[in-house]
């Protein structure tokens, strides 16, 4: 079962991403246990974890936030389509890179999968609790969902 250290680790990794890449801190809201209510925004980057422990994590956010991050990273004023998808994949990938570093080679981390559009919900393993961490970066809302056996 997931413990405090695990959840802190995922939150800190995500916070670090925002701070390092954008020089602007994000803030984490109170985490909660995911219920049937869907937690999906416009763009979602999902990473599967298997090996010694199994589960998945995803970050879901909206177009406006991704555009603003793109502006900071790439200096582009208006990015569209695949570039936005790539960016959410990039965020997920960075988090997954940190996961790989922290959990070592006993774990298998999948290539990030990006879901565009407000899907009904992201299917997580039924028998494992999922924790939702609301994130705020500038005025943008996003969610980190962590599900780890």
């Amino acid at each position, binding site marked *: 079962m997931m413990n405090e250290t695990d959840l802190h680790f995922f939150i800190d990794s995500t916070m670090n991403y925002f701070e390092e890449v954008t020089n602007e801190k994000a803030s984490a809201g109170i985490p909660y246990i995911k219920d049937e209510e869907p937690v999906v925004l416009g763009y979602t980057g999902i990473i599967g974890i298997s090996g010694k422990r199994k589960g998945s994590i995803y970050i879901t956010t909206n177009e406006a936030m991704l555009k603003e991050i793109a502006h900071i990273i790439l200096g582009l004023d208006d990015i569209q389509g695949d570039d936005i998808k790539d960016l959410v994949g990039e965020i997920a990938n960075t988090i997954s890179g940190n996961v790989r570093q922290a959990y070592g080679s*006993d774990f298998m981390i999948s290539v990030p999968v990006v879901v565009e559009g407000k899907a009904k919900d992201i299917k997580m393993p039924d028998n494992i609790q999922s924790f939702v961490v609301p994130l705020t970066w500038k005025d943008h809302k996003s969610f980190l969902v962590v599900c780890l056996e």
Partner: protein
Amino acid sequence: MENMTLKSNKEIILQTVEEGVFFLNSDYAIEGEYSSALEFIIDQKIVEGQNFLDLLKSRVPENIINNTIEFLNLMFRDDLDDETVNELNPLTTVEFHFENRWGLWTSSKFLSFRFKRVNQDGQIMKLIGTVRDVTKPVTLTKKIEEIEETTNRQMEWLVNILRVAPPLLKEFVDVSELELAQIDTELKRFKGTEDSKVILTRVIKSLHQLSNNTSLLNLKFFTDKLRIFEIEMQNLRKKENIGGSDFVPAVIQLGEIRQMLKDIKHLMQRFKHYSHSLRPTRRFEGGLLLRTIENLVENLSRELNKQIKFSADKFDHTLIPYTHQQIFREFIIVLIRFTIFYGIETPEERKSNNKAPTGTLQIETFSDKQLCGFRLRHDGRLVRIERLLQKTIEMVGSKSERDHPIVSDQLGSEVIRLLFMPSLATPSLSEAEYIKEIFGEMEMVKQKLKMHRGKIKITFTSENFCEYTISLPIT
């Protein structure tokens, strides 16, 4: 002819053998001839010259692949003993992971690989590999280990649970799930630091309600967990700047509590007599209220070394509409806790006051077309009320409220105000904490009463009796 027969026999063997059999050359490529079972066991198509290590990629963790490379290197070294090297085989029992199209793990197979050298002219030409699906025995062993672990943990629970009447237990689970849902809702409301203390206060109240329920049923394992959690939340509330991450321990513990509830439900289901009796009618559920109260009186008197004769002859739960039963339950529990803790004295104290060593506590219900409610009466000391009463008696020169309805009305409101003032707690620290809790609950009762347009009335005399009347409109 002989060669043809040999070839044919080899094909038959490779087609029928239940193990995956294959040959690996020194580049770790799988040679063309392998058993039909191989693709089925590893759940993958093999292409000509497929590298064995590629089969492992995305199926097993990186460290196992690295160990496999080292192991296969050693297997091709003829200066090393075959059997000794085989002891290093990292694939003796290995978990193969299977994912869905999103890369999320869906299932696993446990496979057992063995390798032997194929020598020719004293040279290692290739390796013959075999693989078997050992998922069933491995998962069975894991399951047994898990069951052993859970059984040990749940034995204590079971001892606790079996003492509780099944319908009460079911009611407890239902109410607890509601409280947990309430906590989740509170957590989701978080908007910023300013909110966190308010949210924490609500969470603590819900936790408190939960632990009250568990202590009513003597579910020690659960009460302990909740108490620790509650203390942690109280400590967190004392922090100056509270951020979302500070709630991580809380959320993890909530997850554990949810899991405990799930396990309790699972335990309940495992006992047939539970499932048989877990379908109470509303009428029967109403009866549970009285049994809960009886348990509370019994447990609390024992805990506080008090003797109490509890009477509920005039308690008719059918007078309380089903929709009001939960709220009445809360009111009654709070008032009874308050009364036993404060009002009713220990046998020694009672004797020194020329009272019977056993205190009395009576509860009765009433209803008419518009109102329903209950009266709770006790013959314990009237604590602060007593002092106030004395003061008023001195003022008006009377001993009974009946003689001076106006004064007694004012007195009643004053008593109610006093009852709901948390600042009056004085005794030892632990007791003070306890009293603070009770006052917190009383405050909650007051708010809920207001919300439900209900009323509380306190009647008393200097003759050591106090009666609380709580009424709610029926519609």
